[in-house]
């Protein structure tokens, strides 16, 4: 199974200078656990902000949600794999890097994301289909 077969193509992104409050609002509205952080300028690169970052780095330290900016806690650079690699490779990367999601890239473009939950769901569906064709 290849990563592009199970990846989520719709990526939610946010500006690095947006307040954390906006990021929280977006995550709750969209029921997602991470946001792609846009580069500040041409020299900058894409980053990611997760629920875990917000809880540990902002809420846990009692920082102001409106004054703290997304860019202050963004993890960079993104950990990416190519579109055609096996899911197993992506999972190995997650294990080694101790992360729960990997971005899928096609050249310089980010085309999707897979999380542990996506991997688990895809594996369960694959198991349920075993012996019954594709």
């Amino acid at each position, binding site marked *: 199974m290849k990563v592009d077969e199970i990846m989520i193509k719709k990526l939610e992104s946010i500006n690095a200078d947006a307040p954390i409050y906006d990021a929280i609002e977006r995550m709750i509205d969209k029921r997602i656990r991470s946001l792609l952080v846009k580069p500040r300028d041409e020299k900058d690169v894409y980053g990611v902000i997760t629920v875990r970052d917000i809880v540990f780095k902002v809420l846990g330290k009692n920082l102001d949600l409106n004054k703290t900016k997304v860019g202050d806690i963004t993890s960079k650079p993104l950990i990416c794999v190519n579109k055609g690699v096996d899911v197993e490779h992506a999972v190995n990367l997650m294990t080694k890097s101790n992360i729960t999601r990997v971005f899928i890239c096609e050249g310089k473009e980010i085309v999707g994301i897979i999380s542990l939950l996506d991997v688990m769901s895809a594996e369960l569906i694959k198991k*349920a289909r075993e012996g019954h064709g594709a």
Partner: protein
Amino acid sequence: MVLKKVFGGSTEQKVLENIKRHMQILFSASGCFKKGLEEWDKKQMYCVADLEREGDSIRREIISTIYEGAFLPFLRTSICRFVEIVDEAFDALKDAASEFEHLVPKLDKEIRDDCIEIADINQKMCDMLMIAFDTLFNKGDLREKTLAIRIYEKKIDDMKIDLISRLRGKEVKDFWEGKILSDFITYLTHISDVIEDASDYLHIINLSMR
């Protein structure tokens, strides 16, 4: 051995074959619907209504055979209910196809892509429902098939929420344009709920046979 006693008679076998055919037609209708969406071809959608009618006649045949005496009485209601739920999925699919015929402007690419993906997942759910039904009589774990159906349903549920929030910001020219679009999305996303209900009923049938 127990399964052979419960399902082994000729009338029972006839019912089972017809139920499989019923689900196979639902799968074909879902595929036809998806193709119509992909090609944005309203004429292609006519096949959904044709297949729904075919499904209807098979449903009537199944119910008649059951009430003529197929299966033990305690199983009859559950099997009939399962068949009726599958028929509700046909109805939702037919309603979605009918609303599609009246959609006036072509949907934005992003919304259309989402609708095609939902139609694709609906078809995969039909396929998984057939697999789950087969599992009732053969070796296999029904629970893992129904879980797969729930995973698909959850995915459509998430897409539905996102789709509706985006559609709320879309400008519509008049009442009917908005209503038709809203109904189309409602029916399209309802199919997965019904298939999930059908898979729950399979679980009930499985429990009754123990």
